[in-house]
């Protein structure tokens, strides 16, 4: 089993190598990063000026770019939504093969604060591990430190850790 991070219209000023290393350490699987081009056109909602993450997952599932035995996660800087929600940081196919993470609302500048690339790197890494966790069948966790803790606003992302708690880890290995 491999993990592939696909970058499409993503924010390029962070350390991709460090991201792969952290994700690899979380899952103990080989992780690669690849730039890709995806036509997001029909996933765009002009009224909301956001992109439909569920439709992006469908594009990924139908694309022939994802190899067998690979969990693929798309990293983008586009603002994502699912129709009923105002926004999402990411979405994953539970117990599936694909996921998507947006860094749009993870930038400190989005909240009127000075740029902080290190913090952005940390937030992106956490969200990528979190969404990949869902593709391995993990649900949200109650432990404050666990990376699988649900994050509905950015402070939640900052508060949780980058690693799986023992309970999630054991489920992950069972999976």
């Amino acid at each position, binding site marked *: 089993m491999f993990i592939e991070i696909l970058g499409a219209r993503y924010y390029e000023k962070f350390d991709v190598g460090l991201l792969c290393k952290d994700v690899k350490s979380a899952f103990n699987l080989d992780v690669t990063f690849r730039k890709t081009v995806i036509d997001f056109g029909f996933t765009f909602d002009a009224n*909301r000026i956001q992109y439909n993450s*569920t439709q992006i997952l469908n594009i990924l599932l139908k694309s022939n770019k994802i190899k067998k035995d690979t969990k693929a996660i798309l990293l983008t800087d586009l603002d994502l939504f*699912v129709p*009923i929600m105002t926004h999402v940081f990411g979405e994953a196919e539970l117990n599936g093969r694909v996921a998507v993470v947006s860094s749009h609302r993870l930038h400190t500048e989005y909240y009127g604060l000075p740029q902080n690339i290190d913090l952005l790197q940390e937030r992106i890494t956490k969200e990528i591990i979190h969404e990949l966790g*869902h593709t391995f069948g993990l649900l949200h966790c109650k432990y404050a430190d666990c990376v699988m803790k649900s994050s509905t*606003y950015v402070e939640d992302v900052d508060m949780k850790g980058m690693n799986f708690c023992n309970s999630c880890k054991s489920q992950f290995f069972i999976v």
Partner: protein
Amino acid sequence: MNNKNYGILVVDDEKIVRESLFKWFLEDGYRVDTAENAAEALRKLQSATFDIAFVDIKMPGMDGLELQRHLKEVDKSLTVVIITAFASVDSAVRALKDGAYDYVTKPIDPDELTHIVNNIINQKKLLTENIQLREKIDELTQFDEIVGDSLQIKKVFELISTVAKTDTTVLIRGESGTGKELVARAIHAHSSRKFFPIIPVNCGALNDNLLESELFGHEKGAFTGAQYRRKGKFEMADGGSIFFDEIGCVSERLQVDLLRVLETRQFTRVGGEQVISVDVRVICATNKDLELAVKEGKFREDLYYRLNVFTIFLPPLRERKSDIPKLANHFMKKFSQVMNKPVTQIDPEAMDVLVRYDWPGNIRELANAIERAMVVGKPPQISKEDLPFQMKNTNGIKPSSDSIEEIEKIHILKILHQYNWNISKSAEVLDIDRATLYNKINKYNLKNR
């Protein structure tokens, strides 16, 4: 409790909304189901239980408002959250008035959604915990210790039920061992104060100074040994009940203090100046003739009238002999559990002895007799031989005449049996010296059979 134990039903005619919320809640670990219209929602609610229903306010056919009412008819405990568009907030407010817990506007802020669900779940957890605790308290405060179905005890039950609902001061009267404290606890347990403590005070067990400190508490340094400030029984009983056992034993000095507290519900700690107010219900018990004590000037008349508002007379066991079999079996079961001894019945002959005995020590004596029989007897039943010695022998012995001598003879024999023919102890109880007792034994030709 795991989130899996909580069920969420999403009712919306838009497939995309159903799917999004389904996935959202699934990732949170909840048990989720969806329905695309009111009919399907009601059908699903009939076949499964849900804790929360997210209901779209605008649906073809039955709308969210009407569906909410129907859902509540099926399951009163279901919490409904209305999903609405900005344009229909007025309807959402109407839904709130109709009993919806909250509403969310489309598109939903994920943070708001999480908060609403967490609040509902926490509230449900508290409610469940509250119900469990109340059941626990009800279990603990059942007055199944008061056993019997004689007319006399039924009357007592009636009086307990009547007075428990009020805050009236109760005076429980009856011989020693008739269960006065149990009645006090039953009154408390059936009152609105049951979630607060009932604090018992045994007025006969403490001297004047100690009792004062026990009742009102004391400040640090109030007397030698008062190293810390201590709350008194009145303070501890705040919100609940205070039970004065053997109220007739309270000294005249303390009667004055007690009267003042009962009138004002205010007092100061021993050695203190701060006036403390309490909200307590007073229940008293005595086996003494308070009227006689008032006449003799030993009990204050004003305190007597203050206490004697509602009186419950507990009949002695000899006046409700029909309850003895039930009581005996009750104690047998109780001690069988405590001692882990498989005693399951009382031999009819033994029961006959129990019923015919006069029980001067009332229920306490009966309980002790059964406990003793359980210790010495062999399972599975209590036999006549297991009963206390004096009971078997005195049973059926009636004075052959009403002469003083005959009554004295029977009484001495009873005491001797009661104390296992311990001459010193029996003489002490009879309030005569050992030599006199020996003379009486010889005179009446009494023998330890």
